[in-house]
């Protein structure tokens, strides 16, 4: 792949020979083509993160300039702040619900769609189309129509069919039934995306494997357990990772369902870490604490990603 640009079809002239030693035209073209991305990532990632890292050791209230060094003060504050620790347990609970449910549901949908012939494109579209909807709009529908707590709210209408009393879904904290709203919202929005990934994986499995299995008299379940699942291992690892990272970065639906600030509606005070960060960085204008929180969260996500690779990817070498 590296020999490609040496243009082997061109007769070697002295000029070509010179160019091969230090090809300034290639270097120039490379610089022009990669320039925007290199500069953009440099400014908005490297400089931003470096600056923010320094800020995290500063008392930076209402300012983004450095100069008020306080060492690990911001980190100590966060680790001693109940609200921050609660936000971590909130996101842990959310992850425990959303990851397995989304994984199983998307795999199930993919297997279902893959096993039917007629109307496959139709069903695929129906399950994927919620992915076009933003979290804000979904939160609106969930908060104001499905789980609004009124007797005419869809969840309560369905519950009423079974004789249940209306439940104020988003403000009931014991038991914490608001999780039903939060988890179902994200499931509806995301399951189609992961279904597509599983579908791509399923379609890459050779049918001859199943034919061989059929000759050996395997049942449907055995075929799924011993052929499909192992063949989907790489896809499964990728999907798990994507669901997990996305769960840890939850912001939109929590912010809108449990409306901060202006909201007049009583809802459970549920704040995942990003909402906490938003409140400290943008609400209180405490950019030092906001930066420190960003780094704590980054470390946490990286550690969990690596751990997950350890456990799920164990013995993966194939």
């Amino acid at each position, binding site marked *: 792949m590296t020999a490609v640009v040496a243009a082997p079809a061109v007769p070697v002239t002295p000029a070509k020979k010179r160019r091969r030693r230090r090809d300034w035209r*290639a270097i120039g*073209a490379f610089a022009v083509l990669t320039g925007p991305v290199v500069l953009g990532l440099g400014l908005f990632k490297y400089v931003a*993160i470096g600056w923010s890292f320094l800020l995290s050791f500063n008392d930076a209230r209402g300012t*983004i300039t450095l100069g008020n060094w306080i060492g690990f003060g911001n980190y100590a504050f966060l680790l001693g702040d109940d609200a921050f620790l609660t936000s971590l347990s909130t996101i842990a609970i959310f992850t425990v619900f959303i990851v397995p449910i989304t994984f199983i549901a998307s795999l199930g949908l993919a297997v279902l769609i893959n096993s039917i012939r007629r109307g496959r494109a139709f069903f695929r579209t129906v399950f994927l189309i919620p992915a076009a909807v933003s979290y804000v709009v*979904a939160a609106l529908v969930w908060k104001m129509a499905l789980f609004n707590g*009124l007797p005419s709210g869809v969840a309560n209408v369905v519950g009423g069919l079974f004789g249940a009393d209306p439940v104020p879904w988003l403000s009931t904290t014991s038991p914490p039934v608001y999780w039903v709203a939060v988890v179902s919202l994200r499931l509806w929005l995301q399951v189609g995306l992961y279904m597509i990934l599983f579908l791509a994986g399923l379609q890459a499995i050779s049918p001859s494997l199943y034919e061989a299995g059929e000759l050996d008299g395997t049942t449907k379940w055995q075929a799924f357990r011993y052929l499909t699942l192992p063949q989907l291992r790489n896809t499964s690892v990728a999907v798990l990772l994507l669901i997990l990272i996305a769960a840890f970065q939850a912001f939109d639906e929590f*912010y809108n369902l449990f409306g901060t600030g202006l909201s007049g509606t009583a809802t459970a005070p549920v704040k995942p870490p990003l909402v906490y960060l938003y409140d400290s960085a943008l609400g209180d204008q405490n950019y030092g604490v906001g930066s420190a929180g*960003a780094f704590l969260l980054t470390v946490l996500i990286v550690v969990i990603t690596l751990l997950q690779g350890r456990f799920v990817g164990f013995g993966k070498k194939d």
Partner: protein
Amino acid sequence: MAVLPGYRKAPKYVFASVLSVIFLLPFYIMLRNALMTRQQVGSPDWSWLPDPLSWVNFGDLFADTSVPMAHSLGNSFLVAIVTAPVGTLFGSMAGYALARINVPGRRFVFTYVLVTLMIPQSVTFVPTFVVVGSMGGVNTEWGIIAPNLFSAFTVILFRNFYLRFPVELEEAGRLDGLGYLGVYRRLVLPNSGSMIASLGALMFIESWNAFLWPLVIGQDPSSWTAQIALSTFLTAQSVNLPALFAGALVTIAPLVAMFLVAQRFIVRGIAASGLKE
């Protein structure tokens, strides 16, 4: 399998159909509520159909002076219509160079791009705010757009795509006297249509639906995107519910339309971006 296909598969079709109804229900409710009167929405009784149809809500949506909905939709359009093509072009350019132009330092640039992938996107909103804020980007459209034009993910996907690109085309171009940039612009770019369409569509959806970053940087109503306007509407004290649902419909309409038209490319983009990570 050839004998009784219909009977064997029937339960699956029933199951898939029931699920479809559940998946489409939120869309129906959006439509229903957008066409109801305020009294009907507030009524304790459930009704399937608004009667009469209350089209006035769409007018109310744009007449509400506290939420500049029309202006916010315009901002969303501007953000998405700039971010998607420019971001995709930057990704294609860098991806091509990284795949096909062999110069000293290429590996370094590749690693430089790759490392930024490891940092979770939304955690960087505080650092990015610090930089964009110091450059005077708060409450500006460019402040919303600029950081999202550079996607390491898009670069990596394009690089993988160009690694498998037929080399004959480039050789022919070079024989005709084109330089590296000429080959890229005249031959490579016009032949990357499907990849550009799939990643461009994904970028469009992403920037249209983005919430956290526009919320952070666009604090003044003049720089709100449609998502921010809706969110403000949602958390306002006295909310005009039917108008709010009308707003939701207006906001998702362009994307649903695009999804149905460009579905082939969007599906391919999702499949590529998920598996290559």
